[in-house]
């Protein structure tokens, strides 16, 4: 802003009229002369006319410039940064320096990031403070406003403020400038100095500033008389981006889901890419990396200020797979941190199942193996479950090694050697056993041979209704209590539960009360329908009815397939688990240790340990504050045992997608919100923010005048 020490001299600008009048006068007063050699005058004039006209205009301009320069120089002008008047009018001011340390400040422009520029501006601003101006500084990052201990009261300990600014680093968090400004204003209230000023160094990203919030106000001092009002501080927002647009493309979401079309363990990764610039970004390369290898690449066009999705497919190895999607950017300028996103996916392993058909039947509706084979067919499981069917006699001699799950369907009590082999396989090798009953099952023989394996001993077979009899539908048993949270059932949303509840069971086994089985589902009369038991390294799941239509109509209902598939996977400990939800940087993630263990260590993607805290209510869990994006792993162990990695606890922390949107706040609206041009302004540099001394211009103007005089002399001499 231009200001004048002696504005009265500006009247001297009127003297510009003099050369203009002289110019016009010269133009009007030619003396007529009849001249013989007019031909030569005409020719000479023609040659020089344009140059002469130009010279006249130049002369006029130089003379005007000379007078204007002298008049302006006498008025002693100086350039003040915008809005300085308001800041300067109140003498020394307590100053709060607010440095935006959000993720978007990591944006790279040229060789420096916005944060580095803002930090040096803040240091320069600190240096320019008057000796009678106390200062405080704070890093604005995270949802709470200031990070760390907030902003203290302004003090004269410049060294501490300087040290704090020098060591400041940008975070991966979002920032809430509105809260920071309010907190800074509050801190200024603790200073006795009358003038209050906030200098904020930010990229002015629209998402960090709420335009509908009340303006920051400095509360009256504690010693003030009652009724004293809060005052409005002078606010200077130093724009680290200096008004430039900050185009940015970012990965804002990654969804990994199984893809049946890609075969067993085929997954598709859906990447959402956002473009915050006003220009179309075309041909942006998206790569999918698993481990160190790039397994898929694709290109995407992202519309201006919009998003686009790109789906990349890959066949992943079984187990916990960590990967990353990345954008390949050509320009050096931009925000690197949001160009990629990690993901963790639990890829279930393949399961090998042995179906033992106790009562093979040519009538499909009576053949248990038919329904089970159909449910586990590769077309329905993505080829993940390899099932082999044997009859009871063949199975009795078959080795059980290599199988993950054994399904005993309506099998008469197996011979003792087989039962022993089975128990051993369950206990030692972790074999899963699914037992379904039927007409061939004799409860007493079962209890005798498989007593140890069964979750609870069988008692007797109950017939709720005779299938096909009149009113059988009404009298048949239905599923009553179901543990929906169990992996077997979690695929059923509230809308799909009806499909399970509507199954009718006409006949089922009642169980004796002893035993340690855990009932997952029971009939409406309270009798267990599905009951499980952990036995050594394996699990046993008992279904108290048949998997053919002889005792129940459940096998022909749609709810049968998912439960059976889930059961097999769960028994094999190869459940297609729900993928771990991502957390956002800035949040806290609670890692619940599996029963009997304790979270001992949390590692970030680089392998470094991440600090966490515990709550007294759940002393084994870890609550991890997430300060950086990437993959996190947890090591768990029972007390006193060497910790091992728990894949189920692996997760990914992602960046706040709002930070990738670098659209700028509307300056006019921002200034209006902060109290109008009188007390708020947006500047491009620390010098502007400081506004202690204007830049004098009069010497430059005098030089300009002298140059004009020289030029005028040179032109008139010719």
């Amino acid at each position, binding site marked *: 802003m231009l200001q004048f020490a002696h504005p009265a001299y500006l009247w001297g600008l009127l003297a510009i009229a003099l050369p203009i009048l002289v110019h016009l006068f*010269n133009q009007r007063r030619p003396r007529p002369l009849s001249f013989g050699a007019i031909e030569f005058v005409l020719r000479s004039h023609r040659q020089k006319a344009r140059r002469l006209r130009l010279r006249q205009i130049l002369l006029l301009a130089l003379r005007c410039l000379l007078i204007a320069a002298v008049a302006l120089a006498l008025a002693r002008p100086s350039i003040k940064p915008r809005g300085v008047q308001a800041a300067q009018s109140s003498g020394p001011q307590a100053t709060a320096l607010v440095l935006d340390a959000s993720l978007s400040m990591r944006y790279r422009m040229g060789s420096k990031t916005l944060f580095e520029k803002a930090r040096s501006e803040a240091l320069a601003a600190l240096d320019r403070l008057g000796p009678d101006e106390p200062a405080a500084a704070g890093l604005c990052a995270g949802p709470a406003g200031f990070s760390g201990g907030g902003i203290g009261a302004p003090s004269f300990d410049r060294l501490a403020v300087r040290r704090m600014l020098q060591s400041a680093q940008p975070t991966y968090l979002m920032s809430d400038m509105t809260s920071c400004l309010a907190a800074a204003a509050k801190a200024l209230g603790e200073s006795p100095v009358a003038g209050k000023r906030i200098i904020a160094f930010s990229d002015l990203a629209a998402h960090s500033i709420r335009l509908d919030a009340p303006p920051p106000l400095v509360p009256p001092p504690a010693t003030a008389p009652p009724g004293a009002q809060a005052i409005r501080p002078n606010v200077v927002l130093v724009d680290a981006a200096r008004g430039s647009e900050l185009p940015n493309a970012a990965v804002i979401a990654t969804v990994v889901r199984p893809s049946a079309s890609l075969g067993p363990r085929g997954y598709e990764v859906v990447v959402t890419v956002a473009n915050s610039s006003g220009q179309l970004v075309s041909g942006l390369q998206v790569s999918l990396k698993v481990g160190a290898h790039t397994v898929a690449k694709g290109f995407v066009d992202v519309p201006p200020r919009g998003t686009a999705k790109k789906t990349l497919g890959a066949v992943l190895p079984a187990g916990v797979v960590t990967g990353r999607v990345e954008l390949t950017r050509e320009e050096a300028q931009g925000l690197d941190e949001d160009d990629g996103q990690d993901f963790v996916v639990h890829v279930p392993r393949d399961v090998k199942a042995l179906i033992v058909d106790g009562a093979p039947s040519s009538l499909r509706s009576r053949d248990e193996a038919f329904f089970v084979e159909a449910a586990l067919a590769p077309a329905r499981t993505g080829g993940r479950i390899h099932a082999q069917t044997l009859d009871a006699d063949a199975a009795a001699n078959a080795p059980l090694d290599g199988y993950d799950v054994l399904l005993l369907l309506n099998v008469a009590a197996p011979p003792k050697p087989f039962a022993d082999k089975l128990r051993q396989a369950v206990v030692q090798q972790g074999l899963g056993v699914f037992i379904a009953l039927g007409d061939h099952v004799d409860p007493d023989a079962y209890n005798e041979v498989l007593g140890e394996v069964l979750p609870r001993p069988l008692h007797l077979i109950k017939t709720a209704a005779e299938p096909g009899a009149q009113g059988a539908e009404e009298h048949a048993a239905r599923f009553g209590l179901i543990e929906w949270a169990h992996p077997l059932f979690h695929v059923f949303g509230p809308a799909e539960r009806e499909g399970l509840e509507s199954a009718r069971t006409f006949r089922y086994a009642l169980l004796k009360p002893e035993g340690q089985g855990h009932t997952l589902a029971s009939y409406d009369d309270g009798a267990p329908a599905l009951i499980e038991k952990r036995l050594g390294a394996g699990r046993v799941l008992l279904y108290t009815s048949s998997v053919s239509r002889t005792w129940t109509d459940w096998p022909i209902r749609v709810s049968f397939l998912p439960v059976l598939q889930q059961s097999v996977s769960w028994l094999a400990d190869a459940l297609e688990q729900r993928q771990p939800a991502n957390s956002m940087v800035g949040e806290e993630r609670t890692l619940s240790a599996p029963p009997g263990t304790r979270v001992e260590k949390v590692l970030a993607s680089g392998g470094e340990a991440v600090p966490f805290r515990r709550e007294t209510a759940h002393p084994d869990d870890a609550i991890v504050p997430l300060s950086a994006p990437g993959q996190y792993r947890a090591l768990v162990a029972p007390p006193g045992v060497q910790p091992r990695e728990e894949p189920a606890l692996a997760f990914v922390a992602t960046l706040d997608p709002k930070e990738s949107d670098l659209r700028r706040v509307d300056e006019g609206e921002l200034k209006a919100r902060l109290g109008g041009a009188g007390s708020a302004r947006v500047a491009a540099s620390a010098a502007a923010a400081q506004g202690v001394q204007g830049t004098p211009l009069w010497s430059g103007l005098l030089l300009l005048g002298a140059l004009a005089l020289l030029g005028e002399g040179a032109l008139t001499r010719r």
Partner: protein
Amino acid sequence: MTPAQPLLPALLARLGPLQVTARKVMEGVLTGLHKSPHHGQSVEFSEHKEYAPGDEIRHIDWRAFAKLDKYYVKRFEMETNLRALLVVDASGSMAYGRGAMTKLQYAAICAGALAYLLSRQGDQVGLCIAGDGGTWEGVREFLPFASSPTHVQELLKILDGSQGRGATLLPAALDFAAEKAGRRALMIVLTDLFDATDRSIPALKMLRSRRHDVLLLQTLDREELDFPFDDPTRFLSMEDDRSIEAQPRQIRESYLAEMRRFLETTRKELARADVEVEQIATDAAPDRVLLKLLARREAA
């Protein structure tokens, strides 16, 4: 005033009518001539030269052939008398002159003095005033060749009464003069050669090509040569309605260059065509100018 002193135009302007001033100038010239080492300009001399192919057969001296039985050619057998036609340009531009006299007045004095000189030695003199408004195209007045004193007086009267006006019609006047002169004559042309059509120089060359002896007295005003103006001026043409506003100081350099180029070109071009050119400023003493001119011609 001693005869040795030049008759400056300022002085001549005060002397009165052209009859007086022209005579004064003529006397000045004669005085100058008597002092010069050359004696007269019409020395009659003849000799015989043995005939060689290419010589005119009509010049063969048959008497000598009768006596000597050899062909002899008579050389330098002079014509009976010289015929001179004074062509004076009376166009508008010749009326320029803010000093003692205009270019036309100056040209009239020179022409008058030459008329005196020529008639004095018995040569015939004619006058052609080039300009508009006459009976013939480009000729305002014409006086045929004669050598009597009354003829000279008549000639001076016409010169005295002539005024500079209108466009330059010199080319037409020269055509007319060539026609009227008939056989070979001395053509003395007094003009500033300011001719917008650029046809005057070809017309002069045409005269020469008709074997006339052509002498151009290019009369220019000192102001035209030096362009001494300072104030912003609206220059008006003296021959038509053209005008231009200019800052003389700004165009002086370019004007002088143009003028120098014009004089130079005129001189060179006419010299190549064997036309004698004398460029005269109207502030020079006319008697000195004529004396120098005559002396040079005699030497040639």
